């Protein structure tokens, strides 16, 4: 049994602290739907920033999408970006401030539909930034339309009978495409549907940031996440569904590590 004694701290039955909110998370109440993966991802991301001690050195870029308000929760310098342009904005920031840690935080519509050109070219240039790609297979913010990553058969408001490949294509595995680019230093796919997955994600994020210090090219971390509202499921079911369906099409694991990149060049 654990209980939450404040928004900052959770304790077990012996009053041992089991969780402390990182300083880099503000006290603002999250606007995300109950059970949405964004909240967990925000928390892990800010824990990593805290633990690396780089709060003052980090600039985040969050574009239009459910996470556009990320700046209300992440207590760091942040820029909001136009839909699809987060990696271009992050490029502008990083080129002016090469010694800062810069990350983008983008949805699947943002990164793999409207912003595909920026995504590919940012990685192809090997911009020394961390791109965080939250794949929930749907357009959350605009109310649940088909995303480039929507699974075949999946019902959305614009694929009311389920997505079929004819006419709208297959789910886009952009992370696989990204791994082919020499500019990519580290490409991995993670998820946040279990505590174990969250632990792995944290490692990946830490690596994503430290890579910047080492100037090792773009770090690209896809996070397969849920969208209980968009998927019309309760949070538990959505995580179960994620495991059974999303992770078969988007299997977790590293697609490219810095050592493999060295072999390429």
């Amino acid at each position, binding site marked *: 049994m654990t209980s939450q004694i404040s928004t900052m701290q959770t304790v077990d039955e012996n009053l041992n602290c089991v969780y402390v909110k990182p300083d880099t998370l503000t006290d603002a109440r999250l606007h995300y739907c109950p059970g949405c993966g964004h909240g967990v991802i925000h928390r892990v991301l800010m824990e990593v920033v805290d633990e690396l001690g780089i709060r003052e050195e980090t600039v985040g870029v969050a574009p239009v999408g459910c996470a556009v308000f990320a700046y209300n929760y992440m207590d760091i310098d*942040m*820029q909001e970006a136009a839909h699809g342009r987060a990696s271009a904005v992050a490029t502008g*920031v990083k*080129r002016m401030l090469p010694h800062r840690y810069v990350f983008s935080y983008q949805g699947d519509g943002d990164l793999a539909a409207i912003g595909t050109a920026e995504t590919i070219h940012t990685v192809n240039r090997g911009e020394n930034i961390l791109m965080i790609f939250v794949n929930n297979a749907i357009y959350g913010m605009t109310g649940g339309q088909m995303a480039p990553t929507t699974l075949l058969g999946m019902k959305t408001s614009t694929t009311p009978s389920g997505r079929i490949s004819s006419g709208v294509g297959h789910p886009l595995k952009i992370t696989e495409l990204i791994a082919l680019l020499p500019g990519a230093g580290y490409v991995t796919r993670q998820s946040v549907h279990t505590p174990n997955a969250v632990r792995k994600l944290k490692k990946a994020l830490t690596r994503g940031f430290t890579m910047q210090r080492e100037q090792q090219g773009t770090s690209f971390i896809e996070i397969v996440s849920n969208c209980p509202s968009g998927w019309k499921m309760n949070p538990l079911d959505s995580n179960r569904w994620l495991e059974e369906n999303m992770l078969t099409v988007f299997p977790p694991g590293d697609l490219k590590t810095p050592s493999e990149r060295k072999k390429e060049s």
Partner: protein
Amino acid sequence: MGELQLMKGNEALAEAAIRAGCKGYFGYPITPQSEILEYLSEHGPPRGMTVLQAESEVASINMVYGAAGAGARAMTSSSSPGISLMQEGLSYIACAELPCLIVNVNRGGPGLGTIQPSQGDYFQSTKGGGHGDYRLIVLAPSSVQEMASFVFEGFDLADRYRNPVLILADGALGQMMEKVTFPAYDPEEHRILKPWATDGARDGKERRIITSLHIQPEKMEELNLRLEAKYNLIREQEVRFELVEAADADILIVAYGLSARIAHRAVDLARERGINAGLLRPISLFPFPTEAIRALAERVRGVLVVEMNAGQMVEDVRLAVEGAVPVRWFGRMGGIVPSPDEVLQVIEQMDGAPQETVAEEVYQ
């Protein structure tokens, strides 16, 4: 003191950008301004400027957003179709109040149009261009010297007002070679503090957010009103224009950029023929020299607007003149530059015509 050089307009502008302390240039090739990107690719990096050929104009303008938001002097340049692609980004930049410089070396449109010079982007430049209520400060050079000078002035204005500044030139100004003197300009002396910039929340400073999102209507309207107040201040403080033989003019020409050079010649030709013509050349297109035109309209018999488009600035001139005298328009399109003789013919018609005929022609 300054140094005198013979340069192409595009190159003079690029050289000025380096001297003005621009730290980030992001652009995509398009005629007739690719020399800016090319010149900077060669001369920028050794002198401390990051120069990046982006994957598109959409990317360029968003890189400018990021770079300007990080507190650096940043710019992009393009020509008409590329500037169209930037409009969403410009609207975000205006709303987030990020100082930066955009250069449009205007070519003929619509569509892919022609690579020849045009002034067809006047509406797009001065009325907002993208979505929502916003304004760019728009400077219109008419010489290679001004292609350079307006870069320094543009960055200073952008920083002072936290507003994007557009230099609206045209293909001919970009390509022509003229003498240019670079002023002594130390960017350090012109540097102003940018406490709003997201360059890392260091030294206990409060963290900063750059955004154009204000989801509550009351907050958004508050921002709209603040922007309007800023634009009104700009209207009060930053109007720039040049007068040529306007004091005793019977016929006043209003023309900017390349058209103003042609109009100037036409004024000289008219004066040789005993017609008292004069010229008002708007230098700032936003803010527009409304008051100056209005005041002169009280003293002249007619106003002639000369532009290389289908009649765009003439609308602002008519608003300024408010029917006090007839306003006539003359222009060429498609990349064709009007000749001084063509303009002279119109002046002669206006001079010879009885008042009513001139008035009728306005509405033909």
